[in-house]
């Protein structure tokens, strides 16, 4: 009897293992095959960056490489560093603008979303839901629609912002088209685009912070209050340190999406005025699809990947925590 029980147990376990194996295979095989399509396109981009490739030229017999699409090795990367051609200088301009954009958006985003999340978290639950919904609405809006709307707000003749400035007796500003206007060394047009981007994006981080705040056990805050901490001290000495894993996540995601900004800039300024808002993804787009320099565009895309990867690693090292609650 015991022997039969053991044998049937073995068969059951074996049956369970088989079912598990089938499930894993049925899920992973399609996923791997799907990913391999993406790997193919990544691989092609990786190859292209070593060629001066344009789809308009027939090139050599193998995938159009060689011939009129010659192999240039690492020349693209050398040009990025010290090339004097127009596209090399535009790359360096785009890189600078992208870094300015990303490193301006992140602290501004955190400065808005974190205190706002704390404020929302402090109100009654019925109101909390309403606030969360309202602040999340811009995230749901199509980015092209956001860009067009903000373009109208910034219109120098008929826009709302200049109407307010006129009412206050000031001189209207050409928000998106004056290449000379600067604040803190950054073009006004760049600040204008950052403003539009923050409006469209902050709701996403806000709901993440709200959820994180709700997950912090109240005992920590209560203990701090008992020890004599005021509200500011509770927020800065208890809440923010406990939010560190969430802050890390938000920083990484915000930086990655900032480095990839494209549509809002293309619609609002198309990189102008005078390339003051030209960012890397826009530079890639123009080189690849407007001027057919696929090889050069692939090289820029690769550099962008490396930069994003490096910044992500740095953030994870600086903000990592080795505890949980």
């Amino acid at each position: 009897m015991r022997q039969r029980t053991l044998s049937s147990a073995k068969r059951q376990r074996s049956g369970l293992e088989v079912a598990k194996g089938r499930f894993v295979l049925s899920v992973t095989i399609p996923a791997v095959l799907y990913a391999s399509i993406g790997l193919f396109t990544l691989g092609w981009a990786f190859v292209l960056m070593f060629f001066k490739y344009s789809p308009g030229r027939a090139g050599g017999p193998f995938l159009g490489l060689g011939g009129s699409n010659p192999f240039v090795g690492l020349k693209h990367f050398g040009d990025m560093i010290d090339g004097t051609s127009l596209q090399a200088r535009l790359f360096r301009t785009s890189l600078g603008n992208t870094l300015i954009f990303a490193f301006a958006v992140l602290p501004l985003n955190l400065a808005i979303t974190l205190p706002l999340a704390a404020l929302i978290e402090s109100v009654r639950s019925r109101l909390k839901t309403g606030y969360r919904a309202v602040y999340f609405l811009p995230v749901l809006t199509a980015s092209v629609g956001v860009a067009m709307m903000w373009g109208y707000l910034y219109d120098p003749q008929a826009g709302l912002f200049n109407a307010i400035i006129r009412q206050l007796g000031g001189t209207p500003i050409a928000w998106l088209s004056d290449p000379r206007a600067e604040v803190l060394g950054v073009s006004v047009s760049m600040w204008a685009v950052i403003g539009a981007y923050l409006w469209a994006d902050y709701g996403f981080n806000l709901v993440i912070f709200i959820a994180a705040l709700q997950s912090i056990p109240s005992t920590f805050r209560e203990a701090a209050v008992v020890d004599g901490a005021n509200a500011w001290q509770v927020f800065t000495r208890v809440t923010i340190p406990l939010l560190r894993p969430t802050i890390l996540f938000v920083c990484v995601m915000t930086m990655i999406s900032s480095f990839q900004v494209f549509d809002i800039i293309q619609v609002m300024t198309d990189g102008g005025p005078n390339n003051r808002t030209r960012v890397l993804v826009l530079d890639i787009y123009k080189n690849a699809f407007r001027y057919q320099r696929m090889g050069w565009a692939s090289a820029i895309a690769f550099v962008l990947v490396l930069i994003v990867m490096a910044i992500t690693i740095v953030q994870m090292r600086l903000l990592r925590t080795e505890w949980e609650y």
Partner: protein
Amino acid sequence: MKRTICLSLLVVLLILSVAACRPTEPPPAPTDTPPAAQPTKEAPPTEPPVVEKVSLRMWAHQNEAFNQGYEALIGAYEAENPNVQITLETFEYDLYIQTLQTAMPAGEEADILQLFGSWTSEYAERLAPAPEDVMSVAEAEDLFYAAPIGGFVVDGVLYGLPQEFNLEYGGVLVNKSKYDAAGLTFPPAWATRDDMLNDAQALVEIDDAGVMNVAGFHFTSSDPLAFDFLAGIRQRGGDYWTADQTGFAFNTPEAKATLEWMLSAVNEWKVVDPVLFNDEENWVGDAFFEGRVGLGYIGTWAIAEGRVGYPDFEDEWDYAWLPSHEGSPLFVADSGWGLVVSPNCDHKKVAWDFAKYAAANPDSALPWNLASGTIPAIPEVAQSGEIAKEMPWVAAALDLLPHGSYLGSMPDRDQVIYEIIYPHVLLALQGVETVDEALEAIDAEANASFE
């Protein structure tokens, strides 16, 4: 066994789903608007139609006026050749360029392509040369104006046939209602550019805060700015090509004089604020039909677009021609839109027959030019009574057209015009660069494009 069957089924399902994800040709643009004027019945006979059933695809960029004309052309050709079916597929402008770039390397482009003539040298390796029995280079140069056909001839080989004279130089939209309100004589009779600037000054509107709400003469969009700059060089006796045509020469006295004239229009005549009126802000084609421009410098193609895009624009308006900067009205022009044939087309003979019917047959070309509002590429068509009646601004330009020559085969025409000439000239007008700095930069960057 069961496991093997399940895995096999999963793989088959995956292959089917991936195959379904392959990009398919986009559906043809909706064409529920009635076709434009039909070609006359007296059209001379084309080559004898091929008997077998032929199905061709044609690609074009989305422009409602253009495409109405294409639909009419296709309908007329199919009526004469019942065994031929041509399907027109249209794409938004930026998407059209990308579609060409991805389809051509894959050999999946349409049989007949609408192509901008000045792009032909970049795509020549992927186009089918026109057979001699369709048209030789000499015949084409004899039939068409010099500027339209110039771009379609690359290294002595004809690759396409133009349908329009893409004239970005010299023409302005004129707001008659603003003219009347300012007490100016309409139609304008400008003997010199100063006469025009006088009128433009009276059309400017500036609000209490010092913001220009209406530009008197908006010439600071990319195409008019660049082409007027190049024309100014030619009209002053200079050239922007080196003597051997292998490089550019922009840092010349003629270029400087032209740029200084533009600067005086901005700073002394104050007819436009180039910070508020340029490609990115208040683009001339939109700003004119929004009532923000008195004289809008733009090609005639904007007339049809304005009629279609702004049917509720209440001001009366017309089109007029500017006097030259100096002397003869020499100017340069792109080779405009025309038709080319793919080397992967299975029925090249029929495809070329249609291209020739559409572009080189005056009786077929005329209705297309009328529908699209474009200047004809064929002098005989441009001088016709129908053009004079329906498009009087073209009749007024007939004396100008023979002065045009092709822009020239630049290594990267779009980059030279839109990323080199236009930005630096605009920066000079905006006061960010001096005239000398702008010309030096244009000269250096344009010559670097040959590398």
